[in-house]
């Protein structure tokens, strides 16, 4: 019944398929993981010293390096010696279940000696692209009639230059009105007979020869032709007149516009003047200018990490669906009471550090990273803390859950004891000489929406006043800055429909505002003179512009009409002359004979 050779063959196959690979399993798996990981990460993934022990259900490696696909000269992260417990029986269910990973010396954004770029295969992108951090400047969202102050150059001209003047836009709309009117005039003018038609008319007139009149019938024909041409020319002259009336009527209205322009420009300047006399800027402007960029860059940094998480999660989910099946792939049915596992699930990652050898470290834990959170129904929970080369210490807590209707990320980060020495706040022209800062941020993403807050607190502050420039504008700031010993800034952030709104306030606002208001008000008379001069100059400029444009358009249209009207009147005279000559050329007897016949023609 049994085939002896068959049993030997099967055993041979088993040996080849299972035993031999087991002997070389470590290097096979290491190579496979490097290849697969590189493909998934889009950049080089390197694993050193991987060993697998089925007896202990454990995988260990000396080093794991993942290159940042966006910057191949940087590593996204690298680990030191690490151990990973694996559930071997689950591997036979085609699932990777990792109860625990212990990672030593996890480091982010470390430098690489060689580029970690790989040749990517061009794939059709099927997943919904993860939105990149919104770089929209929050200052743009509340721009209406606000002045953004450059502290290095506090003067009236710069303030007016940054005012949102409404007159130019209105003047532009007038210009487009003129362009439309001119287009309409020229359309009408184009309907008048062209040169070819005029030549034909000319030929008809020239063909009238009164010397050939020999009978009453000849005369009747010629007079009839003269009458027909005259009617045609009169029609053209009437059309000309209608167009001329239209042009004149419209330009009469347009000529009132310079007064309107004057009013608009003056209104703009009056508004600017009012604005300046009240200080010209809000505390909101100041806080946004000093801290806006910092907050945006911090949010961008968080969001770039979260985007990567979303990208890989989407990638894993879409990969399972693209499994190649030769025949009908059917449908996998899952039951409620079955043990349902995702393709890969890391239940716990413990991060620790050998602080004796490393200046910066990360410790803590990350729980429940899985390829399919809709199966585990558990969010990824992050609880880590660390120190960056003695510059600052930080704590990060977060919950990431992608299985709901919208991906959700809640991140709380607090960075303490930041050494601010040498730091330059945007808008303050002096670097920090001494100071310690703390940042507490709390961000909540739901789909593409974000809400959160950032709190920055700096103490023991001292600015290096010798490092700034010595312009007049900076002198005001110098006085203020030398008295600042702490900063307390609070930002509330909200993002929806790709629009980021930030409400930022700080203890510096009132200090700066009152001091600069005083400075501007002190120069009020000078300011008013400057405004009056600019108002007069601009009003004249815009009025001249409009007047010149209207006159030019009117002249163009009327010139064209004037030429043709003169020509047509000339033709009418010529026809009258021809008529008289024709009438002279017949005898009195013929005249009487004709009078009777002509009565009908000129009725």
């Amino acid at each position, binding site marked *: 019944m049994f*085939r002896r050779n068959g049993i030997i063959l*099967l055993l041979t196959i088993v040996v080849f398929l299972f035993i031999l690979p087991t002997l070389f399993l470590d290097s096979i798996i290491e190579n496979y993981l490097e290849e697969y990981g590189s493909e998934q990460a889009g950049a080089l993934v390197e694993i050193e010293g991987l060993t697998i022990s089925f007896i202990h259900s454990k995988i260990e490696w000396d080093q794991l390096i993942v290159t940042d696909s966006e910057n191949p000269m940087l590593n996204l992260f690298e680990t030191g010696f690490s151990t990973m417990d694996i559930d071997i029986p689950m591997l*036979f269910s*085609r699932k990777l279940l990792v109860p625990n990973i212990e990672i030593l010396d996890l480091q982010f954004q470390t430098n690489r000696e060689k580029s970690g770029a790989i040749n990517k295969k061009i794939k059709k992108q099927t997943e919904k692209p993860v939105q990149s951090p919104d770089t929209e400047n929050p200052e743009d969202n509340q721009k209406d009639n606000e002045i953004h102050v450059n502290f290095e150059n506090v003067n009236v001209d710069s303030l007016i230059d940054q005012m949102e003047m409404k007159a130019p836009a209105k003047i532009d709309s007038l210009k487009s009105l003129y362009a439309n009117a001119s287009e309409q005039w020229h359309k009408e003018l184009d309907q008048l007979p062209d040169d070819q038609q005029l030549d034909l008319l000319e030929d008809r007139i020239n063909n009238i020869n009164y010397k050939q009149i020999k009978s009453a019938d000849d005369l009747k024909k010629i007079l009839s032709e003269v009458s027909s041409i005259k009617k045609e020319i009169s029609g053209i002259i009437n059309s000309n007149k209608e167009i001329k009336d239209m042009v004149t009527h419209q330009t009469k209205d347009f000529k009132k516009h310079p007064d309107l322009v004057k009013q608009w420009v003056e209104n703009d300047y009056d508004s600017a003047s009012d604005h300046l006399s009240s200080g010209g800027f809000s505390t909101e402007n100041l806080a946004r200018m000093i801290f806006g960029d910092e907050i945006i860059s911090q949010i961008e940094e968080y969001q770039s990490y979260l985007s990567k998480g979303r990208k890989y999660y989407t990638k894993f989910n879409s990969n399972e669906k693209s499994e190649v099946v030769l025949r*009908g*792939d*059917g449908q996998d*049915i899952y039951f409620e009471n079955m043990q349902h596992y995702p393709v890969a699930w890391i239940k716990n990652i413990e991060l620790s550090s050998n602080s004796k050898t490393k200046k910066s470290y990360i410790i803590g834990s990350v729980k429940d990273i899985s390829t399919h959170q809709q199966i585990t129904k558990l969010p990824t929970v992050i609880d880590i803390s660390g120190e960056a080369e003695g510059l600052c210490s930080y704590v990060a807590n977060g919950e990431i859950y992608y299985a709901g209707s919208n991906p959700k990320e809640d991140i709380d980060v607090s960075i303490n004891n930041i050494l601010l020495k040498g730091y330059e706040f945007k808008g303050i022209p002096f670097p920090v000489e001494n100071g310690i800062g703390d940042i507490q941020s709390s961000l909540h993403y739901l789909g593409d929406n974000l809400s959160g807050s950032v709190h920055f607190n700096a103490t023991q502050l001292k600015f290096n006043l010798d490092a700034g420039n010595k312009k007049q504008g900076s002198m005001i700031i110098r006085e203020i800055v030398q008295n600042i010993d702490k900063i307390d800034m609070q930002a509330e952030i909200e993002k929806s429909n790709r629009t980021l709104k930030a409400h930022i306030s700080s203890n510096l606002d009132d200090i700066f505002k009152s001091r600069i208001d005083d400075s501007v008000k002190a120069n009020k008379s000078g300011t008013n003179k400057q405004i009056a001069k600019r108002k007069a100059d601009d009003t004249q400029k815009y009025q001249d512009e409009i007047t010149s444009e209207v006159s030019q358009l009117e002249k163009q249209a009327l010139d064209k009409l004037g030429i043709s009207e003169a020509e047509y009147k000339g033709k009418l005279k010529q026809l009258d002359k021809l008529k008289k000559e024709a009438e002279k050329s017949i005898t009195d007897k013929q005249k009487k004979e004709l009078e009777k016949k002509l009565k009908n023609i000129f009725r």
Partner: protein
Amino acid sequence: MIWLKIFSKLLKALQSGSSPKQLSAGFVLGMFLGMTPFLSLFSFIIISITIILNVNISMFILGSLIFGIIGYMFDSLFHHFGYFLLVDVSALESLWVFFVDTPLLSLLRLNNTTNLGSIVTSFIFLTPVYFATIYMVIKYRTRIGEKVNKLKITKIIKGSKLYSIYQKVTLIG
């Protein structure tokens, strides 16, 4: 060459000492392999059984080819049948849960509708196909075999140089 080899071996097997049961068992195992839509642990088990048991390999190949084509044509029926067994027959749910949750057995992928449908269909047809094949082999040997040998195509194949080389090689082997 390979098709010629299989065909001549098949003819030889049908007329040789291979028992009708061995031929039929090979054909039935081929049916199981051909009907399943993709390679799984089940396919590996079928191939292993074919290698270990003294069944006819040519009939196994023939069976897997014929039922491979049939299976391809009836995939959607297998899907509906499998779906019925997995979803509508609630009494069987604990059995499927057992298969899916048990390591190694889960590699059978019995929670896949098409796979389950085709495997169960194969089991349903096991007995009829087995006995029908035995009956046809016996009939062939007693009635049709001689007629087939007399066919021109059979003579051409048997008279071909390749066939004689093949026979010599198998005799030496």
